[in-house]
């Protein structure tokens, strides 16, 4: 990303990062999470060039607080998180709206309609309403970039934190983006004490709530004149569209061009709604359709506004546009056609005799988690017990799928250990929880302390592969390196577990299946005797990293192959292990050489001894 005024193909998230740099952001923080990850990832890769401070924090609350502190020190700051990440940071968000900010402070909330890689759908614009924080929503990569700069200016001018809301489709779309020069008034942070503002004792908080309310009024004034809102056409039938919905609406109107004239309001400043602008738009309308992704956020506000202003406009929204899932061009097209009373031909679904096979994501070939899960099953069988498997958010959630099926619960970051405290007490079964090391640091430590404080007997297996692998291998506290590539002291889960008071604590290598299985079996005995919680750290680098190191010659993997003479085609290896490097071909199984990490699991599973080392 250079500074000339050229046009580059940019991911929505990269465009946001670029906007931050153009807008003079000096501090950026995040905990990785799809679909927000690439924002801070991009900034981390540019930290040296632009002299930025960038960090992967242990969780979103911490990320929010580090960036907020920078803003308190009059620096411009950005923090980015996925929608559910803002739940973690929400405690601080609500009060930050009271304290206000100093340097421009943007919170990017990347929502995930359709839960492409999340546990729920959540419309975080509502956080703005609830927390007294302005929200804006871009409709293209170009706007995403430009609106970050705009948001920083508004935030600094009105002293408010501001939420830039995106959705997966915008975060992950690539489009042309025209660059602007970078503003570089490099500042040194300076903190001016203001306890009457920054100490939220009740007496201060009551006053500050009033300030927050009046700040919002001022922001609304600014939003009334924002050039990111746009009105086109003057028909009595109108469409109001927010964010990406605007892009769908424009295309739908192109298709319907010959039928009708519609006037359209692109609303980019979604909270507080610019009432004057809306009043001007609504006052001569007969009918209006509001198109927005997820909740009827604008719809409810507009309905209230019409009532207040005595406007007799027929308002449509979620009656014609789906409430759940991601918006699609079809859905928007249908909605607009129906408010126009136009009959449209939608493509008929062709009848197919065969279907594409379901292809859910699965654990990678050689993933150490597969071995650990397999060992859990072996140990449980060996000890002949019934077990429950709470788990968490990360690659290992994929252990849910057959043939492993060792994930019984997944709610949100850290919930697995918290649930285990309860399940161990109330279920009468053996509880074996799994959690990645990154999630462990993120949200499991208080629950682990709880398991000692209010004793519960379960096994926690920390699946430590040295990275936050799910989101693309950001360093975690065990990696020994941070976002800016500095060497740092690794923080080890076993040290933390011991410090929490865990007495049974073992570290194993999951590629050593026997040792891993017997440690788990031992832990089962231990918790059965009611001696307290047991923690096992199953440590082995993510196999994608192993393969990468192998390809660049840093390490040498010894791979497995199937002897076609011995292979009977029983598929036991695939059915027991499910490694994607095992491919059925002409009645037998072959191992895709480029994928195999040589972990040896399939060799153990093959009843005909057909799998062995590559000589």
């Amino acid at each position, binding site marked *: 990303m250079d500074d000339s005024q050229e046009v580059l193909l940019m991911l929505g998230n990269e465009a946001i990062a670029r906007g931050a740099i153009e807008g003079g952001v000096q501090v950026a923080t995040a905990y990785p999470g799809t679909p927000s990850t690439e924002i801070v990832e991009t900034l981390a890769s540019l930290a040296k060039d632009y002299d930025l401070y960038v960090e992967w924090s242990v969780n979103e609350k911490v990320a929010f607080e580090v960036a907020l502190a920078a803003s308190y020190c009059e620096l411009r700051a950005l923090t980015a998180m996925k929608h559910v990440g803002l739940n973690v940071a929400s405690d601080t968000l609500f009060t930050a709206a009271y304290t206000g900010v100093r340097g421009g402070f943007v919170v990017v909330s990347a929502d995930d309609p359709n839960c492409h890689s999340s546990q729920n759908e959540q419309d975080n614009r509502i956080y703005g309403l609830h927390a007294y924080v302005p929200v804006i929503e871009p409709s293209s990569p170009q706007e995403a970039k430009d609106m970050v700069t705009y948001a920083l200016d508004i935030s600094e001018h009105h002293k408010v934190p501001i939420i830039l809301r995106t959705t997966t489709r915008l975060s992950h779309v690539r489009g042309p983006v025209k660059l602007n020069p970078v503003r570089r008034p490099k500042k040194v942070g300076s903190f001016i004490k203001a306890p009457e503002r920054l100490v939220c004792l009740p007496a201060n908080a009551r006053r500050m709530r009033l300030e927050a309310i009046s700040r919002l009024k001022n922001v609304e004034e600014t939003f009334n004149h924002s050039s990111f809102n746009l009105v086109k056409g003057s028909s009595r039938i109108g469409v109001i569209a927010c964010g990406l919905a605007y*892009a769908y609406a424009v295309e739908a109107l192109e298709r319907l061009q010959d039928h009708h004239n519609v006037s359209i309001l692109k609303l980019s400043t979604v909270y507080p709604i610019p009432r004057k602008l809306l009043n001007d738009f609504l006052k001569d309308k007969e009918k209006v359709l509001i198109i927005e992704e997820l909740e009827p956020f604008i719809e409810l506000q507009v309905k209230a506004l019409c009532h207040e202003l005595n406007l007799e406009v027929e308002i449509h929204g979620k009656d014609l546009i789906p409430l759940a899932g991601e918006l699609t061009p079809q859905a928007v097209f249908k909605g607009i056609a129906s408010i126009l009373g136009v009959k449209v031909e939608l493509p008929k679904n062709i009848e197919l005799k065969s279907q*594409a096979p379901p292809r859910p994501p699965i654990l990678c070939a050689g993933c150490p988690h597969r071995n650990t899960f397999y060992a859990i099953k072996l140990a449980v069988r060996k000890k002949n017990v019934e077990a429950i498997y709470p788990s968490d958010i990360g690659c290992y959630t994929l252990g849910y799928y057959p043939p492993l099926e060792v994930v019984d619960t997944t709610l949100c970051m850290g919930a697995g250990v918290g649930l285990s405290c309860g399940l161990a007490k109330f279920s009468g079964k053996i509880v074996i929880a799994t959690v990645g090391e990154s999630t462990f640091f993120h949200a499991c430590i208080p629950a682990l302390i709880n398991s000692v404080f209010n004793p519960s007997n379960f096994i926690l297996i920390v699946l430590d592969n040295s990275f936050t692998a799910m989101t693309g291998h950001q360093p975690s506290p065990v990696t020994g390196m941070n976002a800016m590539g500095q060497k740092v002291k690794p923080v080890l889960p076993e040290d933390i577990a011991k410090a929490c008071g865990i007495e049974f604590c073992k570290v194993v290598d999951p590629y050593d299946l026997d040792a891993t299985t017997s440690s788990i079996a031992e832990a089962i005995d231990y918790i059965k005797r009611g001696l307290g919680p047991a923690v096992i750290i199953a440590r082995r680098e993510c196999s994608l990293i192993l393969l990468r190191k192998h390809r660049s010659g840093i390490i040498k993997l010894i791979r497995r192959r199937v002897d076609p003479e011995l292979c009977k085609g029983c598929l036991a290896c695939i059915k027991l292990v499910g490694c994607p490097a095992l*491919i059925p071909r002409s009645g037998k199984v072959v191992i895709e050489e480029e994928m195999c990490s040589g972990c040896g699991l399939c060799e153990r599973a093959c009843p005909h001894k057909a799998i062995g080392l590559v000589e």
Partner: protein
Amino acid sequence: MMRVDIVLSGIGGQGILTLAAILGTAAILDKYDVRVSEVHGMAQRGGAVTCHVKIGDKISSPLVMEGSADMIVALEASETLRALHYLKPKGTIVTNSLEHPPPLSMIKGLKYPSLNEIIEEAKKLTDEIYVVDAYNVARSLGSLQTINMVILGSMWATGKLLLSRGSIVKAIERSFREPTATINLKAFEEGIKLVKKLL
């Protein structure tokens, strides 16, 4: 108004996102507007991946409407079926002949369609179907990672892409370091030959 709407589908790890990004870069070099929309996240772990690419004078929506794609492209044979409902009648199909049944279908005993069955289904919509053996071409080049560039060559050779060969070459050169760039360019050229043979 000129425009080509493309839906790419394949398996995580096949380099579908790289392929899509190269299309996007080439489009910008040819002064078109473009949107490349990728579905990733968990998909990189061997899951199904779909990418929408729209190239033309003016694009606003990042997604292709069902039944309106000018071209669908599958990097694995059965993935053609996943994208088929996007294709407009008489549109173009480019598909890799590689068959890669997912392990889950084995475990659950689900049926995996044969290449012939797949083509039969596709014929309900169009006769313009290019089946190319990208797997073996990539293999002969010594890198299975180039399957995507072989497919790109084949896509270009259909003449439907709007993009100039020169811009695609430039986009490929920009996307890889040497010596990978050279192998990928080679793969692109081989992909063109595959379709030229079918024409």
